[in-house]
């Protein structure tokens, strides 16, 4: 075999160390900020900018390699598997928050109300507490609040996100059939729907904070509600940014019907946040 067929091993990776410095500045600054330092937020900002710089540099290098035909089927397979396993790790990250929600609803709240093994906890510590959902606990943490309804903004958001899944797939069909216009229009619609989702989510949060008195501190309902939807919203934002990059790349003429890993990875990620949202809609908003 000649060297043209050898697996592509890049040399001199300078971006990882930049990423490490950025990550350390960001998180170290954040920790200092949490400890009450006043100047730490500028360290955080620098760290964030370094990370953005790293991503531009690193992805830029990979995109350039891709466009010059460095990657063939075998490298492509590595990228695909890598992305698939990364999404699996994300699934597990959301699983722990869903798990916490289920544990709280099925076990800890009923136990606090005296069910099963919780009899004495209830009798001696929280004698008047009755299990309900949602709840801010026997200590009425965060004061009076109202539940976030399922059939207002969240239902609209469900529609937006499901539609965006369809437009994303439609764009993919366009890419495979070499219909560039369909690809670009489909992607643009997907990005639009994605950012519309994020915008409505922000609206919903301000409704929660200002009108329902539902905050992160509203007991365990507030905690699970904002942490689950918040991390999901963050992932939607990241996914929408990824798709925006794909949109710009499509407009520059990147991707071929055979070779478009980056597009597919972003699409997989998008479908993943879509599925997580369905779980959220059912278990956080609806039931």
């Amino acid at each position, binding site marked *: 075999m000649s*060297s043209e067929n050898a697996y592509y091993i890049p040399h001199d990776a300078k971006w990882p160390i930049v990423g490490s410095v950025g990550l350390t500045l960001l998180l170290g600054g954040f920790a200092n900020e949490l400890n009450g330092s006043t100047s730490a937020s500028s360290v955080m900002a620098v760290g964030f900018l370094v990370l953005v710089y790293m991503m531009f540099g690193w992805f830029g290098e990979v995109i350039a390699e891709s466009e010059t035909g460095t990657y063939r089927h075998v490298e492509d397979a590595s990228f695909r598997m890598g992305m698939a396993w990364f999404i699996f790790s994300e699934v*597990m990250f959301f699983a722990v928050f869903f798990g916490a929600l289920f544990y709280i609803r099925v076990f*800890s709240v009923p136990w606090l109300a005296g069910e099963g093994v919780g009899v004495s906890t209830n009798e001696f510590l929280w004698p008047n507490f009755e299990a309900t959902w949602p709840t801010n*606990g026997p200590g009425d943490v965060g004061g009076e609040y109202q539940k976030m309804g399922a059939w207002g903004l969240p239902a609209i958001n469900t529609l937006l996100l499901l539609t965006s899944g369809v437009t994303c797939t439609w764009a993919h069909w366009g890419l495979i059939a070499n219909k560039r216009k369909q690809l670009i229009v489909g992607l643009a619609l997907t990005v639009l729907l994605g950012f519309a989702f994020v915008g409505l989510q922000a609206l919903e949060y301000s409704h929660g904070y200002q009108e329902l008195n539902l905050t992160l501190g509203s007991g365990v309902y507030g905690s699970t509600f904002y942490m689950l939807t918040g991390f999901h919203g963050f992932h939607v934002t990241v996914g929408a940014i990824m798709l925006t990059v794909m949109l710009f790349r499509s407009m520059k003429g990147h991707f071929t019907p055979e070779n478009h890993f980056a597009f597919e990875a972003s699409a997989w990620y998008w479908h993943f946040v879509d599925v997580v949202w369905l779980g959220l809609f059912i278990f956080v908003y609806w039931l």
Partner: protein
Amino acid sequence: MTTVTETHDDHHDHGPAKGLMRWVTTTNHKDIGTLYLIFALIMFMIGGAMAMVIRLELFQPGMQFIDPSFFNQMTTVHALVMIFGGVMPAFVGLANWMLPIMIGGPDMALPRMNNWSFWILPFAFAMLLGTFFMDGGAPASGWTIYPPLVLQGGNGFPFMIFAIHMMGISSVMGAINVIVTILNMRAPGMTLMKMPLFVWTWFITAYLLIAVMPVLAGGVTMLLTDKFYDTTFFNAAGGGDPVLFQHIFWFFGHPEVYILILPAFGVVSEIIPTFARKPLFGYSSMVYATSSIAFLSFIVWAHHMFTVGMPLQGELFFMYATMLIAVPTGVKVFNWVSTMWKGSMTFETPMLFAIGFVIMFTIGGFSGLMLAIAPADFQYHDTYFVVAHFHYVLVTGAIYAIMASAYYWLPKWTGNMYNERHGQIHFWISTVSVNVLFFPQHFLGLAGMPRRIPDYSIQFAEFNMWSSIGGFVFGLSQVFFCYIVYKTIKGGEKATDQVWEGANGLEWTLSSPPPYHSFTTAPVIK
């Protein structure tokens, strides 16, 4: 049987770059493996120094040298450093060095990401160890970081949380790389069931890592928001439950202990056949046993929490599920013993450590079975019996396997043989001292001495003194190990390609040390 054809590769093979930047920007699996191994050794010595402080304080009853708060910081950070900085990076280093060679691949599948997985670690540990110099000191809640205790920590708390996040990112990227390498980079003919067991055990370990590191990340994020953002995940007043954190932590923690031990199983399964000069007994049963252990590791976590007040059904389920693990583990131990049965055995240092592993890991396994019995655990829980148990499985288990693989592969890595006599001395001093160190702790625990306490009542004095003496000797003998490694890197008798008479596998077909790029052309496996 393997055939290797070397071809000249004119535009890839420049060899390593010069100077410090070689190590910072490298994408070479051997360089990164070396970085991981050196990092792990440094962390092993730092964590070891903390253990020495612990044993010094416990040498006699009463408060001698350090105050209780610092003692708790020592136990906490000792564990975090040894687990996340010592054992895990050591095995990732071994994986980096050996996996591509063992499967006949050119390198790891995602070389740039490989670099980043390593280069996050020094920053993460700088952050963790930096907490010693902050207001309130390092985290002192035990490595299990249970709330509400951990939330009462000082300024070090958020730094510890973020350090754990960074270690998690590093581990997940490393694990993804391992899986993709194994699935995508095997030489033609290297079918899954022909892979060396070290490759198999790492494959399964990597799966466990990807499954549970994000769970830990989620758990510590909840700790962070509970402390700083008014959430009440672990606060009963708000409807949460501190026990929820224990469930989350051990859902990560139990697979984590198999993450620490499965690659050790793999290493031992490589070494014993070499020095018994027989093929591994029951190869496929080893693969299935490893998979079963991985599966079971997800449904046994609450055996760490028997005394927390779980419903009876929970206690019973987790007790029986835990005992089931003895079956596949027993399969492994019997396979190792059967491999040695009627073999022409020789006892070079790697084999000594491997046999030491089999015997002493089994002791740790048996004390684990005792702990698995829920009603008995009510007596042992949080005593020195637990400490003795997990040090038998982690020190004489995981770390012995790492020592064994260091001696086994050092000649391959450096091209030089280590001094066999020194290796033997290291093994025997370590093995005697480690038993003096940890065996008495079983008795201390059965008699009721609690763990993580800097002082103890007078009747525990004698065993503690023995344990401390064993600890100091064991610590010193690891300094000797560092010397042996240093001497071997510097020079020594030249190693042959085969190195060990009975060694089989692709790594022994390459020169010692191997070329900078291992298999630029894939070998054909028949």
